[in-house]
């Protein structure tokens, strides 16, 4: 790999990406490049939103940072260590329900401890604390199918928190929820984030979600996904989503995204014309 292995950054950075790229099915006819040349630095405790059109590779980047997929180019570090495998320090929360349906809520939350052979008492205590933080302690002994979609995602957040992660990776976690629930969940997430002190990397294609949550918004180009710009948001929280500053941001982000969506559409049309 023609790459300088010496990292030019402090080991205190939560996540560092240098020249990260990913090609799916590399070396085959179906190869397609999802990500190219991503350089990114994320500070501890920072809330970063990845914004981009569908299929632009932003989720792929999240999976690379989680260590669930291997990058074909470049390297990623987390707190000074090269990311090679998944780690409980970097918890991933998925779009769809990823709770184990055969376990109760508290057993789901303490799954990571069960793997390490913790006693039942210990697991129940940790689960109770994590569930307390998401306001679902009363639902401890319920099963996932008895909960609403929003509650399930809160349990998923509690499960991630129980591992005391330094980085929370969220892949469109509220996409399946209705608008009202989503707004409540965003407030809830900000509280959790402030309490935990973890960095949050949050993938979405909703501009409103990005401006409500982010310290910085990373805007992606469509395939292959590259970082187009990074838009810092210096507004205090809770944010009034109808203020003039937020409106200006919304317009800026909409313009940035529109180009990419147009380009993606043109590409798809060209593809279907040749097909």
């Amino acid at each position, binding site marked *: 790999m023609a790459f300088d292995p010496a990292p030019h950054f402090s080991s205190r950075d939560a996540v560092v990406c240098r020249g990260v790229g990913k090609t799916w099915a590399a070396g085959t006819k179906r190869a397609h490049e999802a990500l190219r040349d991503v350089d990114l630095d994320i500070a501890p405790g920072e809330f970063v939103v990845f914004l981009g059109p569908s299929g632009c590779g932003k989720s792929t980047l999240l999976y690379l940072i989680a260590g*669930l997929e291997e990058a074909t180019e470049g390297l990623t570090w987390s707190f000074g260590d090269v990311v090679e495998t998944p780690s409980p320090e*970097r918890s*991933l929360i998925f779009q769809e329900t*990823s709770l184990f349906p*055969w376990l109760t809520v508290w057993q789901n939350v303490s*799954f990571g401890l069960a*793997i*390490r052979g913790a006693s039942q008492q210990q697991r129940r205590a940790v689960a109770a604390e994590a569930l307390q933080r998401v306001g679902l302690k009363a639902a401890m002994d319920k099963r996932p199918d008895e909960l609403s979609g929003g509650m399930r995602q809160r349990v998923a957040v509690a*499960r991630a928190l129980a591992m005391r992660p330094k980085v929370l990776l969220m892949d469109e976690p509220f996409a399946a929820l209705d608008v009202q629930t989503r707004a409540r969940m965003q407030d809830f997430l900000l509280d959790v984030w402030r309490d935990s002190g973890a960095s949050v990397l949050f993938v979405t294609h909703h501009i409103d979600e990005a401006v409500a949550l982010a310290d910085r918004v990373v805007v992606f180009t469509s395939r292959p996904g590259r970082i187009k710009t990074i838009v810092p948001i210096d507004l205090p929280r809770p944010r009034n989503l109808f203020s003039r500053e937020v409106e200006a941001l919304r317009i800026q982000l909409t313009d940035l995204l529109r180009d990419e969506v147009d380009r993606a559409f043109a590409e798809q049309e060209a593809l279907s014309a040749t097909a």
Partner: protein
Amino acid sequence: MTVIDRNAAPSAAAGPSRPAAARLLAMVAGWDWLAKAWWTCLSVALFAGIWELCWALGWADPQLLPPPHIFLSNFGEQGKFFNTATRWQVGNSMGEGPSAFESVMITVAATTMRVFVGLVIACVLAIGVGVAVRYWHVFDKLVLPTVTLLSPVSPIAWLPVAIFLFGIGNAPAIFMVVVALFFHMVLATIAQIDGVSPNLINVARTMGASKRQIYGRVIVPAILPGMLQVLRMNLFGAWMVVLVAESTGVGYGMGQVIMLARNTFNPSLVFFTIAVVGVLGFGFDWLLRLAQRRILYWLPDTQEKLRGL
């Protein structure tokens, strides 16, 4: 049934005493169970009724297609034929040995045992091999082609092999059940494993689960619902095969009774045996469904939704 149900409910709800309401609730719950039994009986009665009608109209020759009231009526006489075990022994006459009822019970128990043992062995082996195929890549490469190659082979083709290997007795019949189910169940297990949501596996991975833990704590519980379904489907397969197996390699069992009926041209006995097999298969399936509801408490009730369409 449901009409009575609906009329009864409000009148009791109006009543103030709680025990009465509770009693009614229990009764309605009981009716639900009763309603299911009722529908089962009705379904069978409808089928039998059409048959009886054909007989009454003279379309079904009672010599060839004896209707239920004929083949069920002389139970005592037909039951004697189940006594194949003693009859095969020299010196025993038809009159000796166990009674008709006992003969039927002995035969049924023997066949059921073969089905059950065969099913359990096939299931354990198939899940083991299926999981191993996905767990070790080399095992996959070495075993899966052969399994796929052998799975279309008809159980009939294994019959001589069963006799070569095990002679006569329980072993060849059980072998037949196992061999008829095993290959399909391996493929079904693999299909179930491949259907496990990658999210569940990824969650376990981010929590630091080892490969063994992922298989033990995520994949096996995740495929359980599907595997019970596979087991139910294969239960019927086991019943089918066991009769074929018993018709040659074994001294007694339902398959022997069918063969006897065939050789002595006794349609009543054939239909009687079919009825017994049907009842047994139905019972087994019912038990499995019960177990399914107990073990797989987390599954949603899709059936209920479909009924609403």
